């Protein structure tokens, strides 16, 4: 059973078949096997949120999930969300508000923020903070990130920021 396992899943709309060792986590599978390096690996124990991706529509820590557990799953990474245009406005707001500096946390931040904006039309700053509380940013001090998410929520409701 230490041998590689066959998995079949969908990643960003494409079917993927792969052989993976049991110990391989989803973050490393995405980065090293599929070369989707937008998913970042920070703490590797579920604290920093840099590796956040969507699995079957829910955001998860990809460092805390085995690739073997994703058999039959539908995965969306920052590349998928970005290429589809789903978060183009959120990305633009991050740029406009200087909500990133080094950019390491940004993919996870965007995936988590979009998750909130899908659940709630116009979240207030407290809700945004709460929803992003599992994503660390060591550059911005968070204010600008909250600004960008708040702006996007308002803009999607047809209000000007």
């Amino acid at each position, binding site marked *: *059973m230490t041998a590689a396992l066959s998995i079949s899943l969908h990643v960003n709309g494409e079917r993927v078949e792969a052989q993976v*060792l*049991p110990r391989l986590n989803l973050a490393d599978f995405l980065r090293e096997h599929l070369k989707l390096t937008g998913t970042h690996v920070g703490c590797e124990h579920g604290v920093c949120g840099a590796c956040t991706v969507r699995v079957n529509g829910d955001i998860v*820590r990809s460092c*805390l999930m085995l690739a073997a557990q994703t058999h039959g799953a539908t995965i969306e990474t920052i590349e998928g969300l970005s290429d589809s245009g789903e978060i183009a406005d959120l990305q633009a707001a991050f740029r406009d508000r200087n909500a990133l500096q080094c950019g390491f946390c940004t993919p996870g931040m965007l995936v988590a923020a979009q998750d*909130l904006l899908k659940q709630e039309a116009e979240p207030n700053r407290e809700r945004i903070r709460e*929803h992003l509380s*599992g994503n660390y940013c060591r550059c911005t001090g968070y204010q600008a990130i909250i600004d960008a998410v708040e702006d996007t929520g308002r803009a999607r409701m047809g209000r000007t920021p």
Partner: protein
Amino acid sequence: MKASAFSYARATSVMNAIELLAAHGDRAKVLSGGQSLMPAMNLRLISPELIVDIGDIAELRGIAVTGDTCRIGALTRHVDLLNLPEIAAHVPLLTEAISHVAHPAIRNRGTIGGSLAHADPAAELPACMVALDATIIVKGPTGERRVPAQDFFTGIYETVLSADELLIAVEIPAPPKNAAHFFREFARRHGDYGIVGLAAQAVVEGDVLTGLRLAFFAVSDRPVLAKTATKLLNVAVTPAVLAEASKALGEELDPQEDQQASTAMRRHLAKVLLARCVAALLARPELGAGEAL
């Protein structure tokens, strides 16, 4: 870091999982949501030889409300506890407590069975089970057994589960008439493990408490069902009564010291929670103002 190498088996049923566990003993670990197991493996605090993934076992899913109990399958995720109307209606303490557990991405994977079997003394769900007088249902090679929550936890990360047993569900009695609950924790940041926390279930008749289960967490090696609660039952709670209960609580608890808090700080915070709990349950804010400490 990366987890060290291990074998992986995807269990197809509860019996299949138990067979795998029986065959491999404590060299095997059960993988449920993985939100505590995976960090421990990535940090190489543990290196199991075999991971038994129970994620596909349909019989461990689902919530059933029958008569006077609510049965919650082991694979029920934290996000489900947060959002399901059955939980809000029958076990509102859980709905409230779960928002303090970690962060959305963790709650989307973490499961109730995993949290209880992991038995972190600072975790919210074990204390909730004790407060709610839940029964934990465990299955092994020789059948099922039912363990009261207050007997289930035996130490830091330790429970009565043996290596060949699987936690399959919890059963929570329906709240009695006039039930009220309270949940609060002190943590450095929202979503962190609590420094001290309290989950309580009560029966309030008029302005008197006729039932009270106080489960403190992060004050011992397991959740503590405070005996002090009896001092507050069937009496008109005055500041003097509360002060006496608070003193008794301080004597009853012997919290550990760690990098988060000293013993004295934990004892003090537990007393603060007791006062706030009683004030909230009786809707008498003046009792929580602090004189009782």
